[in-house]
């Protein structure tokens, strides 16, 4: 079960709970890979992966020690931290959030700017919404997400939020090729990541380190392999996911470089860039979404990460350059 103070089990391993951000799906593939192939076990961890369902209060669950790790986005983490929810980002499994806007041809949408004046189905609480409205001056009429594609298919002018790795697949099967606009291209660019509570990180640095290494390894292997082991398990946990769908999703993860990132831009699997986070913090500040000051050094466990992964964090030894780090051996 979840450990307030991660305690070694009889096996000598530490039991921890990782709560995902939805039902089991390939977007969590790396973590499952680490779990299924014994990566976590070798790292001395006994991980339980718990589906996050539709829940809205996962940050609170982490902060109060009900679970040890959870998945979320960096923007939300910063907002939460500013409201006194002490969370620490530990491992970004996606360099960019797969959150997108998809539109049908009839909507006349080809860029984010062309959303101006349109009605879009989006989660109204998404920080992105504010960014589009306030920072980019795009006037949006919002309709809340209903987790259904019925209206998208019924209405050729419909526009809605989606995961680039998921909904387009189902829409495509109905013979519709949607226009997909990545929200990360808006300039408001979040990491999607695993995080833990400040207290947990402070008292279990070894566990966190081990988790980061094992997770990164899991992701690397998942994306590098055929994903069969993971997909088999995912199909058991969430039988609605066909092999075809999961293969498609995995391909999308690779094609969009969501996890691996763009090496040329200094991105790599599992890396936090201080400058990017700083920019996001400033953006959130400008959007008036922060209640108090947030110190990036407190909000991200850079000191527990392999040096190549924590780029530009002032408290650490500076990493010379992205290119150099790429060849580095800080990774197990």
């Amino acid at each position, binding site marked *: 079960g979840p450990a307030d103070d991660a305690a070694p089990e009889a096996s000598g391993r530490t039991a921890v709970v990782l709560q995902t951000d939805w039902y089991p799906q390939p977007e969590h593939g790396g973590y499952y890979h680490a779990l299924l192939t014994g990566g976590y076990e070798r790292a001395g961890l006994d991980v339980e992966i718990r589906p996050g369902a539709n829940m*809205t209060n996962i940050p609170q669950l982490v902060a109060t020690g009900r679970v040890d790790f959870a998945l979320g986005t960096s923007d939300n983490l910063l907002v939460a931290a500013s*409201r006194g929810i002490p969370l620490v980002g530990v491992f970004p499994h996606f360099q960019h959030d797969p959150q997108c806007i998809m539109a049908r041809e009839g909507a006349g949408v080809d860029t984010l700017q062309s959303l101006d004046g349109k009605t879009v189905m989006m*989660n*109204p609480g998404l920080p992105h919404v504010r960014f589009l409205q306030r920072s980019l001056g795009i006037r949006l*009429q919002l*309709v809340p997400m209903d987790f259904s594609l019925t209206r998208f298919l019924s209405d050729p002018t419909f526009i809605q939020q989606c995961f680039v790795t998921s909904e387009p697949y189902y829409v495509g099967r109905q013979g519709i090729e949607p226009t997909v606009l990545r929200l990360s291209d808006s300039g408001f660019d979040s990491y999607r990541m695993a995080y833990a509570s400040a207290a947990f990180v402070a008292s279990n640095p070894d566990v966190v380190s081990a988790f980061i290494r094992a997770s990164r390894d899991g992701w690397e292997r998942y994306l590098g392999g055929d994903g069969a082991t993971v997909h088999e398990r995912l199909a058991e946990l969430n039988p609605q996911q066909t092999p075809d769908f999961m293969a498609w999703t995995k391909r999308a993860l690779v094609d969009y470089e969501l996890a691996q990132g763009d090496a040329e831009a200094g991105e790599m699997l599992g890396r936090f860039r201080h400058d990017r986070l700083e920019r996001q913090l400033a953006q959130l500040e400008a959007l008036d979404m922060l209640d108090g000051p947030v110190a990036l050094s407190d909000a991200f466990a850079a000191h527990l990460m392999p040096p190549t992964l924590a780029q530009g964090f002032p408290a650490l030894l500076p990493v010379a350059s992205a290119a150099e780090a790429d060849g580095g051996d800080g990774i197990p």
Partner: protein
Amino acid sequence: MTSLGDRGRGWTSALKRHAAGWGVAGWPLLVGALITASWYGGIVAFGIPEYQLPPPHRIVEAGLQEREVLLTGAMQTAQASLIGFLISVAGGLVLSILLASSRWAYQGIYPYVLLLKMTPIIVVAPIVILWAGQGLASITVITFLVCFFPIVANTTMGLRSADANLLDLFSVYKAKGWQQLLWLRAPGALPYFMTGLRVAAALTPIGALYGDTVAGMGSGADAGLGFVVLIFSAQFKVPALFAAAFAACVIGFLFVGFVNVFAWWVLHKWHDAYVAVD
């Protein structure tokens, strides 16, 4: 339970005694104070952080701070609630009358009324929105779907519970179906109807708020309370979230209060529960 004593006393004197004692507002305030005290007590004793359960004063603060958003949201939701409630009452009454009108209607229709009630809104919502369009109309329909059943169940039971002797009386005088319904079953069903109304009234703002979260529309700040709740929740504004919930409750209280006054006004002359002193 009931105080021994004169049940025939006029309501004016009952009101006077009410006003004289703790009655009208004292007890709720006392209980409220107790709850608030244990709220603070709990927060201190268990060290509950604000993001888990904010202390009351923080909720008030956040409520004041966000008052504009809350006010427009509450107005929106109140409007949807009101329309949804009225439609629920009207629709519920029509359905109840239909159901009580004959054994065949009851056995034939009731299962499908239940089916309608029991189909998860999340499944029906997209269809509703397709037909009624995004916004108030759909929210109203969803509110209706959430609220109408207590009215139907209660009113139907009330209509079917007519006193057998009075039914005999009506049939002696060859009352037509509608006369029996209007002058015997309906007045006799009032206590049941009022109970259904009270449940529906309490459900209404929830229904409207929920409807807003699935069928609402807005740019963020100009929407109903459902939107507001979604935004506050997604942005971890916990005290503000509680303030929004409280705003929804206020709407509900207004509805329930209105129903109570209405029930008293209709029933106090003859119904035991209202004639009685307590």
